[in-house]
């Protein structure tokens, strides 16, 4: 069956088209959908697009930032108010991929991709989704857990609170190739200190499960404690709890488990 391309002026129309056709996929930057077509994926027969400026809008002036799903990583890197997201954006692809790949698409990127989503998960972002029945806000963790069933809806934007200072949010992607490569593991940590103690610390892991996950046990090890050698050590030893990494070409499950704590320790203690 030949492929049909449907281009709409508004995200709402695109969302309707998407929800009414099981063989339809939304085309953002192309790095997932075009790749699938190039590899001969015949399950896709309709490509849906939207030329809606709302999808490319960045609202970063206030304490809560909203990023349109169609915003590319290059655009994030060009936005000074999104400095806290520059490290995850820069860790993705080469310049061409950053000029194409979008924040919305990254939510759907399978391992070893989807690094930006790991950062958003640690920031406890909210995903705004347009379905057949209007828009709704979904916490990112919930969104990811039902990701496979989200194909019929359209992500409009992602929003999150800005970290209070640059130390409160940290990110690290471990690759085998410098400067760029697929993720062996990806770590993101939201570690805000309140009167010297961690409050609502959040840790997110990439490539340690079928999709980015929170490391709850390690978070509990940090909660209410100062960010010191003892709490970091406790978090590092709990980091693999609830994870289910797999063997792939970039690393074995064993290796991923072994290094997760090492890199969490370095990330939290500010080591290179």
């Amino acid at each position, binding site marked *: *069956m*030949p492929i049909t391309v449907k281009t709409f002026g508004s995200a709402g129309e695109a969302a309707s088209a998407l929800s009414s056709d099981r063989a339809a996929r939304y085309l953002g930057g192309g790095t997932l959908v075009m790749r699938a*077509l*190039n*590899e*001969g994926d*015949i399950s896709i027969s309709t490509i849906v697009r939207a030329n809606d400026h709302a999808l490319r809008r960045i609202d970063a002036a206030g304490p809560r930032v909203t990023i349109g799903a169609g915003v590319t990583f290059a655009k994030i890197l060009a936005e000074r108010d999104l400095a806290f997201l520059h490290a995850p954006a820069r860790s993705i692809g080469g310049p061409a991929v950053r000029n194409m790949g979008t924040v919305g698409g990254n939510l759907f990127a399978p391992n070893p991709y989807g690094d930006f989503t790991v950062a958003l998960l640690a920031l406890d972002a909210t995903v705004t989704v347009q379905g057949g029945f209007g828009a709704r806000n979904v916490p990112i963790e919930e969104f990811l857990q039902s990701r496979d069933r989200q194909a019929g809806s359209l992500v409009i934007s992602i929003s999150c609170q800005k970290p209070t200072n640059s130390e409160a949010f940290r990110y690290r992607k471990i690759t085998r190739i410098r400067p760029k490569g697929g993720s062996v593991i990806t770590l993101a940590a939201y570690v805000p200190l309140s009167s010297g103690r961690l409050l609502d610390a959040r840790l997110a892991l990439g490539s340690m499960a079928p999709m980015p996950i929170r490391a709850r046990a390690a978070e509990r090890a940090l909660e209410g404690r100062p960010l010191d050698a003892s709490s970091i050590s406790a978090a590092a030893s709990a980091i693999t709890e609830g994870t289910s990494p797999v063997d792939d070409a970039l690393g074995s499950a064993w290796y991923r488990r072994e290094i997760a704590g090492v890199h969490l320790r370095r990330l939290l203690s500010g080591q290179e």
Partner: protein
Amino acid sequence: MLELRKDIFADERDDNLKEIGKGTQRQDMLGHVTGTSTYFDDHKLQGMLHLKVVRSVHSHARLRRIETTEAEQSQGVRRIIRGADVPRNLNTLLSLINFGKDDEPSLAVDKVRYKGEPIVAVVADSPREASEAMAKVRIEYEPLPTVFDVEDALKPGAPVVNETYPKNTFTYYEKYDHQKLRFGDVERGLAQADHVLEQRYQMSPIEHAPTETNGSIAAPDTNGRYTVYTSTQALFFSVDTCAKILDVPSNTFHFIGGTVGGGFGGKVDTITEPLCILAAMLTGRPVRYVLGREEEMQYGPPRGAERIYITDGVMRDGRIVARKVRAYFDSGAYTRLSSYAAVKCAAHLPGPYTIPNVYGDVYCVFTNRTPATAMRGFGVTAMDFAIECQMDKLAHIVGMDPMEFRILNAYRDGDMKAHRREAKNTALIECVQVAAEKAKWPLRDEFKRASSRQGGGGARAVVPAATREAHAPTVAAAQQRTVYDRAPATAPSREPPPPPPPRPQAPSHGAARFSSVFGTRRR
């Protein structure tokens, strides 16, 4: 820029080098930087069709039924090709030089022997239509037991991978199931040694990952000929292979190639051309068959894996007196070029060293893995890796500097090599000396003074009178050894060695760094 050490062996050559040591522009550079170098895929032919193959989803299975009716009726499909359509559906690459038996079909008929083996080819107007038709090909498999480990493949009762070689080993000279090297008396040498070191080395398959994937375009030409644009690294070899498989004279083809987007050995197997030409013959249209990236990585032939066991005997003064090697080259499901790789393995023993007692057994083994192929020194690279790791460990055991240890054991002009050829024009000592100098690695004077042209020959030129097959080792009372390889080696044996022994207690001597160093001093 290159530095030439003309001082070394200056008397052996005329000093008239005009080209070496200075930059010379590549002939194809202008084409490369302007993007006008023409690769096989840079041809857009009128009415070109696209070929894709349906690949086995099992590593080893009988093919009960292949149903293509629905696929034939799929939109845009011009032709479905099955094994029966291939004029000579069995080949081995080196049959062109009368080496080995035909063992590999272009399209599997009765059985598949590795995951990804081509079974049916679909020729359609567009890649998309070919993909859609592929999904409509129904194949009924009867999975068979698999074997992925070279030593498991040699065990009695192991699944037979390739019926052409029922013992899962390539047959040399219509008789032998492995390559043998015998020189001196390795068991006596090991028994006399102060230290014996036994180690196991394992190398994985390596994908060449060329930026340009394997592929070809074939087009009908006048006078019943076919023009073929190909990524092959071995153009004439590929012409003759296609002529054999398609059962036509080789002058049927006009092959155009030579500009290859990265080969590294991964483009010598003629994997796309025969089906591509056959499709052009059957449809009368130009046909393009290019591997996708995932196909290239998953099913393109890799460098073959090797497992190597080395047992060395070394004296306290650093002389290696015996080297015994047992190696397995993983050919995957078919021979391709691995039979030759095993020959190179054996030919490379015992490395560039003069050792009076050498013993080697090298097997080319069939398993249900992707068939292996050439890659940059295949057969030699892994053996070198194993030998040089071993050399470092031996140096450590005897407390010698690793560079000096190599100089001590290096072959010199006039020495007899284990293959019964006199060593000539040797230069390992000088290479090590220069490497040490460049790395600012201190060498003692006697080693700085050593020369490949001195100290060789004489007693070192003698071929031992009686080369005996190995017998049950007579172990010196004071010498501790743990043997990996207990198989009687008096006859070509299919008994695999037992699994490696448990790790020993930490040795009391200075070799604690190496977990399986068991040598102790004899005197």
